[in-house]
Every structure is written in structure tokens, then in C-alpha cells.
């Protein structure tokens, strides 16, 4: 399972890096933002109001946004742990951090739950500014670590953008999925859909020995050992819990309860 997921992650990351290299070499005017599903969200208001796009957004952003929403309804937030190149980089950094520092850091439960709501603040702020102050320009680019990293300071970024990027990457070394967990606006949009995701981890209480290994390895701190079916909005179906579970059949993927 791990190998399969790693292969999919590498494929999408390699595609994004190839696009970045082509862009830096001046071989294509396209950047990663042409394939960003959040661009579809940013395009919704000008599309509905004026029938025109914002900045460099196109039909592809809207179609990819719809695809990501359908994927989330079908498989929860698997986009985050299987596809998103920034999620992949964050995951690898946190693994490296755990090896170097010996542990990863988590906020206590209550502050953690509160901090997760920052994603909604980022979402509302990014969309409101795009649609008002920036007047259709994607001003959020200067603050978007995905865009800054995979264009390496593309159009619209500034020196401070790199400070933001390095701060977020440094935070990801210590706190797993720092950006994804606390700040990603696309994650915030996916939250309500993820709750109803059809493909979920299911725990069989008869086979489970309550060793809580699943709770320990979950990068999103979901208390899997206390659930029968994982409905948590932040489950990305990374399947770490299933891989690490020592009891055969205690944790399995279920598709709409089957």
C-alpha cells in the first residue's frame, strides 16, 4: 500500500517539477497554477458574476476543482496524501524531521482544534482579497507556498514570499503537515465533502486489541482506536494506520459500509 501511494505521489510530484523546470527554462508560459484545483475555487465568483475568468485561470482549473470534489466525496481527502505535490513535500520533510530530531511535535488537543480553523480564515481572506482588493489578480500567489515553491519565485511573488515558504517548510519538519493541517484553503473547502467520503477506514472491534498503534502513527492525530468508522474530516486515507496495525483484519478500508 505504501509503495502504491509513493508511486502515485512521485508521479504527480515529478510532473509538477518537470513543469517548473520547463517554466524556469522559458520553454512554457504555463506554471503549476494552471493545474491547481484551488484556482477553480478562486474563479467561481468572477465566472458567476461576469462570465469571465480571473487572472490566468482557465477551464482546466474549474474541471480539476470538480474532479477533486468528486474524488473527496468518493475517497475522502485522498487528494492530499496521494496527489498534492506540496502534501508530498510536507510528508517527506516531516519524516526527515522525525529521523533527525527523533520525534514530531503536536499541539495539545484544544489549541490544535482551534488552529485547524485557521484554514477557514485563510480561505475567506484569500477569496475576499482576490475578488475585491486585488481586483481579479491572484494576489494570494505571493503567500501561497505551493506556487512559490513550484515556480521558484514566479510572477507575483517577492522576497518575503520565500520567507513565508521557508517558514512553512521549517514548520513541516517539526509539525507533520503544518500547512495542510492549519492553513491550506483547499483543505478547508474539502472539509464538508470529506465527512461524507465513501471510502473509509473501518475498525473491527472483535479483531482489535486496543494497542493504539493506529492512533500513534496517524499523521493527523485521529483517535482511530475510538472509532468504528473513521469519519474525521481530516482523514486523508494515507493508510498508515492500516499498514502499521499488528492485528490482521482489525483495520480495513470500507466502501460505503461494505
Amino acid at each position, binding site marked *: 500500500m505504501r509503495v502504491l501511494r509513493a508511486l502515485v505521489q512521485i508521479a504527480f510530484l515529478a510532473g509538477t517539477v518537470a513543469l517548473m523546470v520547463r517554466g524556469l527554462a522559458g520553454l512554457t508560459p504555463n506554471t503549476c497554477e494552471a493545474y491547481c484545483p484551488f484556482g477553480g475555487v478562486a474563479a467561481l465568483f468572477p465566472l458567476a458574476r461576469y462570465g469571465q475568468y480571473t487572472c490566468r485561470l482557465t477551464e482546466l482549473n474549474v474541471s480539476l476543482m*470538480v474532479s477533486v470534489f468528486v474524488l473527496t466525496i468518493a475517497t475522502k481527502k485522498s487528494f492530499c496524501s496521494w496527489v498534492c505535490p506540496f502534501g508530498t513535500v510536507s510528508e517527506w520533510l516531516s519524516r526527515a524531521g522525525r529521523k533527525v530530531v527523533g520525534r514530531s511535535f503536536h499541539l495539545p488537543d484544544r489549541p490544535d482544534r482551534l488552529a485547524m480553523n485557521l484554514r477557514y480564515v485563510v480561505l475567506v481572506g484569500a477569496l475576499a482579497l482576490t475578488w475585491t482588493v486585488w481586483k481579479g489578480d491572484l494576489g494570494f500567489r505571493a503567500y501561497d507556498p505551493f506556487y512559490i515553491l513550484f515556480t521558484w519565485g514566479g510572477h507575483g511573488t517577492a522576497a518575503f514570499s520565500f520567507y513565508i515558504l521557508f517558514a512553512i517548510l521549517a514548520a513541516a519538519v517539526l509539525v507533520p503537515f503544518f500547512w495542510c493541517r492549519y492553513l491550506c484553503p483547499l483543505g478547508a473547502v474539502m472539509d464538508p465533502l470529506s465527512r461524507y467520503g465513501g471510502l473509509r477506514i473501518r475498525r473491527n472491534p472483535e479483531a482489535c486489541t486496543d494497542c493504539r498503534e493506529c492512533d500513534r502513527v496517524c499523521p493527523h492525530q485521529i483517535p482511530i482506536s475510538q472509532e468504528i468508522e473513521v469519519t474525521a474530516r481530516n482523514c486523508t486515507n494515507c493508510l498508515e494506520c492500516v499498514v502499521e496495525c499488528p492485528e490482521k483484519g482489525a483495520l480495513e478500508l470500507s466502501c460505503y459500509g461494505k
Partner: protein
Amino acid sequence: MRKVIIIPTAIAVLVVAAFATANLYRVPTLVFPFEVERPAEVRSVEYIVEGVRCRGTSMGFVKMTAEIPGMISVTTYARNNSAIVEYDPTLTDPDSIREAFEALVEREGVRYQYFRALSQRDID
């Protein structure tokens, strides 16, 4: 755990679906009607323009052509770098429009060419 294959399969299907559906419809990046009275005869020409990449550059294209008499509207599509121009054939023609947007622009002592037509075709 054979169900795990559902995830990469769904990803593959939805990525292909996204690229396929994106080609089924076309929404303009910019629609800019000039403030002129619509003449009796209007013709359209489509240019594929290197430099028309977004809404900002589309506005630049409009600025370059705004002074030409007979311009009626500009509609751009950033995805394929297309600019469709409606014009009054009694006042201008596609070659004059092309000449206008391909003109060099001086900025801080340096001359730049922001737009270059890669192709041009009349639309009936």
C-alpha cells in the same frame, strides 16, 4: 485490502475526466467592448497571440489596439492565447490591427515587443 486500488483508479479517471471536460466548454478571460456605436457591418478576426496569457496581458492587448478607429470589441481566451477582435471593415482591417498590437513599446529607455501574432484567421 484490494479496495485500496479504488484510490489510484479514481484519481486516474478523474484527472482524465478533468482534461476531457475542460475542452468541452470555453469561457473568455476578458470581454472588452469599446464604447462605440455598433456599425451595420461587423467583421471578426481571431489571432493566436504570444503574450496573451492572462487577464492582465489581455488588458495590455486592449490598450495596444484601443486607438485604432473601427475597433468594436476584444475577447481573449488565455488557455490557447487567442484574441478575437470585432472591427468595422470600413475603418480598419486585420493587418492594421495586427500592426498595432505588435508595435514596439518603449519603457524606461528600452523597447519591448509585448505581443506577437502566431496566426490569424477571419471568422465568418
